[in-house]
């Protein structure tokens, strides 16, 4: 697991298969490099955790946003990828908070103990 060695000065090899389209206008990100810089976090772990732990609608939105991060980054839309990353973080936070609040209300209301004849989680 060593770090990627830096390429020799000024001799980046051309990417196989040519450059992807739609790369113009991002000169400040490194011009001809399609994958330059550190990709944003897609928060997929949070999306999966909230989906499995019962906050379904927001968990699904988080997964969609996570897919958008990877999709936009691969297509050269770096600003869009960062925007989707921020949205993924927001929805993961929303689902976590809603999940905790609903869970507390649910348990505190006594519904949880009076209904289940067996555990359904």
């Amino acid at each position, binding site marked *: 697991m060593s770090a990627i060695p830096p390429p020799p000065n000024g001799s980046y090899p051309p990417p196989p298969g040519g450059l992807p389209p739609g790369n113009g206008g991002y000169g400040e990100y490194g011009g001809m490099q399609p994958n330059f810089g550190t990709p944003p976090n897609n928060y997929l772990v949070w999306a999966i955790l909230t989906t*499995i732990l019962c906050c*379904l609608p927001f968990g699904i939105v988080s997964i*969609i946003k996570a*897919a958008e991060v990877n999709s936009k980054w*691969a297509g050269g839309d770096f600003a869009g990828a960062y925007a989707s990353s921020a949205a993924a973080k927001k929805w993961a936070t929303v689902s976590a908070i809603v999940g905790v609040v*609903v869970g507390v209300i649910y348990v505190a209301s006594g519904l949880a103990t009076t*209904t289940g004849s067996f*555990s*359904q*989680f």
Partner: protein
Amino acid sequence: MLTTLTEHLTHVATRAAPYWRPVAVGVTALGAVALVATVDPHEAGHYPTCPSLFITGFWCPGCGSLRALHSLAHGDLVGALGMNILVVVAVPYLLWRWGGWLAATLGRPPRRRLAPAWAIWLLLGGILAFTVARNIPMFGPLLAP
């Protein structure tokens, strides 16, 4: 009092080793798994019913996850698959990402390449299909908890 405690904790956190977060999360997760492994979710009344099942009457993609985790902790892969396939798929991924997080705090350089987006779209489609299918009586015995 609370402010002083928060300041104290922040001070401790900033001075602590950089890997304290993944280690703390790992210890907490191990504790949670130990609890679920000890207090059997297959038995009545040990845990509350899943809220979304109680409200909607449908199995959500997370229903059966505690029982699947219990079965996994006891090495019963078939039992876990019968309760919630999604959990069996998610656990290795979560372990892998936790390892990546720990490695990053230990100084590994960040990833330069992302997973292909189609893999996440496939995951999304799989979760939606799984949610629908486990509520269809024909697939219920196989997919519902």
